[in-house]
């Protein structure tokens, strides 16, 4: 356990260092942030002043060393656009994305997993076809189209829900459902595939021979074994979407991290990009760590490995 923790910490440091350095050099190749800050008609003196204010006149390597030094104390500097602490800005947007993703994930898992199991069990029946159809539909309808259709129905026509997000639980519903639909579709397909695989395994036959009810077999035995591969998927998607779903955040005016990051790319807002990459890096490594720990809980074969390590 301590070993795993050490490994993950090392991994974290490497991931952050690698990612940050990559972003550092990539954004500096991409162009001059001064013009993005000053806009189209600032005079040359102002542009020069901006560059010198930001320390962009120094050699890149000097900037890099300074950047690494600041990274050590987690100081990312001020956002070029917002003129306020970049990390604070990222952390301000982060909860919105996290909340949206977690709610969406709960909806997706809550619906997708049972639907996937049912789809597998009734593979050739009406239910199986329905699950297949829904999964394909969910994956092929673009996010923004679904989002706008939901807005038209629930906000414009029925007037039940607000058309854009950011305040209150009600405004969470539509974006969460839209995101969930997308995640759910993928999960349904995967759970279905995994379940089909499990269905042919010997322990299902054993359970049948022991006269267990179908429900017990499906939701106690099969599901538990399906959970193992599902965990890594859920972990991956959690990381991906907490980092932000730009499309959904745009359609629903959801003030999340994804939009901030894309804005920052366009505006060459280096500090926000660096802070964002840092947070996302930590997050992904952390989620992976949690998934690893959960693996040990659900998969005894891995627990044994951990003990021997």
């Amino acid at each position: 356990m301590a070993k795993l923790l050490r490994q993950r910490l090392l991994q974290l440091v490497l991931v952050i260092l690698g990612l940050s350095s990559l972003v550092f050099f990539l954004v500096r190749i991409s162009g001059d942030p001064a013009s993005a800050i000053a806009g189209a008609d600032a005079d040359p003196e102002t542009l020069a002043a901006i560059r010198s204010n930001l320390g962009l006149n120094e050699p890149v390597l000097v900037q890099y060393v300074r950047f690494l030094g600041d990274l050590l104390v987690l100081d990312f500097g001020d956002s070029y656009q917002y003129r306020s602490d970049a990390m604070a800005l990222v952390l301000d947007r982060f909860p919105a994305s996290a909340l949206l993703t977690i709610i969406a994930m709960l909806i997706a898992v809550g619906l997708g997993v049972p639907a996937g199991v049912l789809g597998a069990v009734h593979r050739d029946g009406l239910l199986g076809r329905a699950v297949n159809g829904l999964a394909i539909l969910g994956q092929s309808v673009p996010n923004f189209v679904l989002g706008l259709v939901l807005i038209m129905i629930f906000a414009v026509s029925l007037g039940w829900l607000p058309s854009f997000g950011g305040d209150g639980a009600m405004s969470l519903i539509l974006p969460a459902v839209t995101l969930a639909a997308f995640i759910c579709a993928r999960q349904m397909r995967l759970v279905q595939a995994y379940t089909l695989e499990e269905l042919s395994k010997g322990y299902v036959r054993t359970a049948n021979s022991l006269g267990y009810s179908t429900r017990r077999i499906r939701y106690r035995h099969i599901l538990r074994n399906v959970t193992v591969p599902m965990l890594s998927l859920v972990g991956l998607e959690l990381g991906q979407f907490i980092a932000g779903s730009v499309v959904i955040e745009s359609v629903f005016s959801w003030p999340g991290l994804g939009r901030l990051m894309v804005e920052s790319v366009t505006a060459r807002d280096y500090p926000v990009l660096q802070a964002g990459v840092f947070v996302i890096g930590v997050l992904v490594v952390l989620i992976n760590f949690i998934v690893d720990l959960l693996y040990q809980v659900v998969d005894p074969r891995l627990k044994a490995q951990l003990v021997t390590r």
Partner: protein
Amino acid sequence: MAGADAVPLLEVEGLDVTFDTLGGPVHAVRGADWSVRQGETLVVLGESGSGKSVSLHAVAGLLPANGHTAGRVRFQGRDVLGLRGAQLRRFCAENYGMVFQDPMSSLDPSFTVGDQIAEILRVHRGASAKDAWQRAMDLLSVVRIDDPARRAKQYPHELSGGMRQRVMIAMAIALDPPLFLADEPTTALDTSVRGAVLETMIELRDRLSMGVVLITHDIGVAAAVADRVAVMYAGRVVEYGTAEQVLHQPGHPYTAALLGSLPRLRRLRSTLTAIPGAPPNAARLPAGCSFHPRCRFATDRCAEELPVLQLSGAGQVAACHWTERLSADGDLGYWRAGGDPLVDARPGDAEQPFVAVENLVKEYPLGSGRKGRVLRAVDDVSFTIPKGTTLGLVGESGSGKSTTAMIMSGLLAPTSGRVVIGGVDIARLSGKAMRDVRRDLQVVFQDPYSSMDPRMTIGQIVDEPLLVHKRGSKAQRRGRVTELLDLVGLDGDYAGRFPHQLSGGQAQRVAIARALALEPALMVLDEPVAALDLSIQAQILNLLRDLQARLGLTYLFIGHDLAAVAYISDRVAVMSSGKIVELDRVDAIYQRPAAAYTRQLLDAVLDPETDLGRYRDRPTTRKEASCVPSAPVTP
């Protein structure tokens, strides 16, 4: 022991099982008849596709949704086939205990074995968590698992194969069923634990007065435990009688042929009388007697008229038109003597070995720690193989024999040691030099299908090595492919077929043909017959012997079945825990085994002639007899 006059526990009469498939209905079981009485063991013996497992699944309500049954199955006089849904589930759970072939996959990997046993009692008996757990531990000790309190908390992967199967048995008897159904219960186990598991089963049968139906393809197992034997072929029971009758005085040519295909340590000096051809596909049975195309005694009548079961001895029935005549003439006894004597004049120049393995070691690190804990899969192994001879490498799972084979075939680099083949140390080779040696060294694996591209024809598969090594023009290569297929006993027509159209034996022949394409000097045969039916196994073993004699090949033959390894080998090396514990000429190993482990292996070999009733008649006397269960069996 069974009383002969006991009332049948389970009666199967005219059982038909049909599966709906995309290619039309497949008639897997055609009017099977058998019955089992309380306290009696019935063994249903047959090769793959004979319908033995399907009929058991039909009885136990485990057929998939596309399976349909007809006929009659009565349990204690009650109709079983009419039951459906929850009623059927409940009935089967209460009355049958079931054990399957692979205990690893038959147990849920996510729950402790204790949980899995307790779950049965909680579901069906409404037991409290505490009571169920207590009973689970009792059951574990009943099936002779030491330290049940500790074992109960372990997961299936933490137990050995034998222990897992004991856990399965414990689960099967948890509800005190009157009938115990075992589907190939020992096939996945090493021979050394096979006997003990069988003994436990028989012991429990007597203690719980159960009837036992045991499905197997292994004649030795059948002989060792059966009171009565039903032999199935192509969905029908072709012979039925007591174990003595069926296995010592077979009334059906198929039973006799099976016995003749079995490698036996007592008959190493004569060829196996293999059954030609392959078992028929259930979808395309030959007319008349299903066995007639492969039967050495077949006549025109056999091809036209379906034989029915006829009484051939006291209670023994066989479905053959000629049983009476063949029995009278003693023609069916040919298996006892074996086939033609083997020519034994092989040049065994041990001074000039073609293969020399010296101090071979292969280590795997355990975990990722720096503390240097390693697993020695191969531990200082040395042997030589003179040109044109066969060294058999026999051992149980985990003995290191397969790792040795991988190193020998150049697929794995050893940690240390030398592997000298034809004067070249392949352990130190790489790149082009390795490829040159590869040509002289071919490998045949256990599963022929997985080593073939399913989208290539057999012709292309056999041609590929020739193509890669640029052996001749297209026309020349085509001729060579036909020649190679002919060499392994396949018609040239097979060149146009695809792997999935072949039976297991045919596929293994193709794999051998491909291995021979580049005229290798050494063949590493890694369990090449382990996945094959007995009748096919004999064919391949004979083919390999024949090829060796004709082409002067050198073999390293790896196997777990001592009798089969002994049959093909000149010398045998016995491996255990990564070490060779004994290496000697075959006859010496058999007659004067030096190592205790070798004796143990020899003892575990079951021969239908000598081991008849071995476990059936002495249920409480062998290896684990000293272990007395600590808890009463019935609550």
